[in-house]
């Protein structure tokens, strides 16, 4: 990883901090009753979105998951319109109609979060097919979860992508639990990436809490995809910093396990890398302050934005 310079580390740090603070502030707003419904925090998993997105181009596509705030922010969604969507406001990315589990935007080529686990995988393969048909240079990064690997659509999407050499990279965020069910109860294989062999595609398992490692792990899959050599599976090991959603205390997580992973927090890992790269604390503090303002402003924007109009909604619906 020696080739990663201080600039890239800093920008990855800034995005990690952005996601972290966004989630924390949004959770606070949830507790105040300003956000409702399901909210699956990305806390502790930020390095995956940050590392993967640092490796791709703005024109590349992503599909996201039910735990998708981090992907969206790293792909370029504005925190204010993200926050507004979580508030259910008209100024949100989906005009308050989608919410946390359905954030999408053409502008940043996020094909969407999904309330169905694994629901974006075939869509990702389809977007990759579109790219291939248009002979475009883009790739699709398909974020998916350990839980999704038990679902038929995971299998079908991996296989279709493989047989047609589609430019898609499956980034599997293995946080080791599906709600309370440990992945070892759902799969009898050491690494889920081993399944890639069954589709004839490369698969690796890496430390998903180190953005620099994730960034590095994307390079060969990206080269392959852009060269028309087909898909890859990148399994990133990580861990949630708490329950499955904001109303789940997550008491089933073994405390030592949780502590071990918290000690290996994506922010801690990046700070250590920054220190080794000789970046001084002042630069970091500057970023922290900028991010703090950005997220505070996002909350203000969301708060001040109006709810969607019921009349407009009913008028739209009547014409559907």
């Amino acid at each position, binding site marked *: 990883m020696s080739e990663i310079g201080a600039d890239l580390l800093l920008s990855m740090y800034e995005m990690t901090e952005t996601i972290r603070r966004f989630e924390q502030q949004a959770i606070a707003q949830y507790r105040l009753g300003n956000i409702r419904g399901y909210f699956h925090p990305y806390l502790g998993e930020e390095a995956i979105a940050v590392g993967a997105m640092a490796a791709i181009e703005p024109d590349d596509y992503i599909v996201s998951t039910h735990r998708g705030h981090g992907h969206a922010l790293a792909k370029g969604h504005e925190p204010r319109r993200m926050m507004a969507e979580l508030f*259910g406001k008209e100024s949100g990315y989906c005009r308050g109609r989608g919410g946390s*589990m*359905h954030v999408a935007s053409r502008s940043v080529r996020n094909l969407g979060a999904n309330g169905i686990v694994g629901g974006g995988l075939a869509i990702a393969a389809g977007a990759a097919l579109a790219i291939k048909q248009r002979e475009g240079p883009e790739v699709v990064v398909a974020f998916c979860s350990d839980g999704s690997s038990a679902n038929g659509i995971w299998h079908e999407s991996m296989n279709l992508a493989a047989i047609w050499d589609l430019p898609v990279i499956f980034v599997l965020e293995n946080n080791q639990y599906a709600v309370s069910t440990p992945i070892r109860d759902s799969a009898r294989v050491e690494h889920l990436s081993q399944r890639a062999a069954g589709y004839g595609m490369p698969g690796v398992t890496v430390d998903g809490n180190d953005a620099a490692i994730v960034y590095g792990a994307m390079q060969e899959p990206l080269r392959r995809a852009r060269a028309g050599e087909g898909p890859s599976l990148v399994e990133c090991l990580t861990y949630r910093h708490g329950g499955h959603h904001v109303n789940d205390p997550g008491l089933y997580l073994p405390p030592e396990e949780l502590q071990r992973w918290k000690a290996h927090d994506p922010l801690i890992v990046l700070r250590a890398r920054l220190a080794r790269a000789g970046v001084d604390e002042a630069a970091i503090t500057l970023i922290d302050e900028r991010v703090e303002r950005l997220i505070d402003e996002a909350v203000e924007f969301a708060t001040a934005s109006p709810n969607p109009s019921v009349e407009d909604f009913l008028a739209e619906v009547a014409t559907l």
Partner: protein
Amino acid sequence: MKYREALRAALQEEMERDATVFCVGEGIGERGGSYKVTEGLLAQFGPGRVIDTPLSEAGFVGLGAGAAIAGQRPVVEILFIDFLLQAMDQVVNQAAKYRFMSGGEGRVPLVVRTQGGTGNSLAGQHSQSLEALYYHVPGLKVVMPATPRDAKGLLKSAIRDDDPVIFIEHKLLYMTDGEVPAEDYLIPLGQADIKRSGSDVTLVAWSHMVVKSLQAAELLAAEGISTEVIDLRTLVPMDVDCVLDSVRRTGRLVIAQEAIKRGGVGSDVAAIVAERAFDHLRAPIVRVAGWNTTIPFNLGLEKASVPQVDDIVAGVRSVVQSGAAAGT
């Protein structure tokens, strides 16, 4: 007793009574399920009969069908009826058809417990009312209880039934309270329940709409309109006679349904009455139903997308008025 406790009691009693009954679903063991219906069952019956699954909806619904064919009585929990769509092939092409296609020899005593409906800002993929999809499939029974008492009695009957039953709960009902008989009892599939008697108009509902319909009937009573509220309880088999009898008495029919109007079960109730009690009808049949939309996330829009008590009141009022004008 709460609705979810009534469901739990039904599971517990049937599992005690019959060793072939078992539960399978996501997080139903230690965690007790998302709506806590199966809480405590793991401790009592062990992991062989209370089984946590991976996210393989098609797989474990099909597995339930297979276990049922081989002589067990599985109760499969699907967290949201929205996810049951992943298992549609297993439900419709396998479980529902097996008995018929085997010439009647094979039986599939499978219960799929799931829940649907709006109410918690869970957006488009976690709020659907999809009973009409299963209602249309020969070989399935469809049950949608509205009260704790019905939930318990019907779930026990569903488990003892030899055909596949889609048992649909409502997310807003789990915490509702109601009387549940102390003694062992069953409620047979296929019997509607007149939850309130009335003489001016028949109001047919099921699941959470029964709650709203009873509130509407109360408001209408204050206006001098006597509303008979029929809770279908089971959609398949449907107690058509109960509905027809009532309409023959009242001459007016309103159906309240949370699902979108187009192609909903309410259309079938209307069609049956228009076919078989036409001469008794004194007014158009009105369906008060969900708008033709994906359920929105925003709470205000979500509320606007499905019928509220006021909408039911307005629907009933309209037929009483128009019936008065046309009929008498």
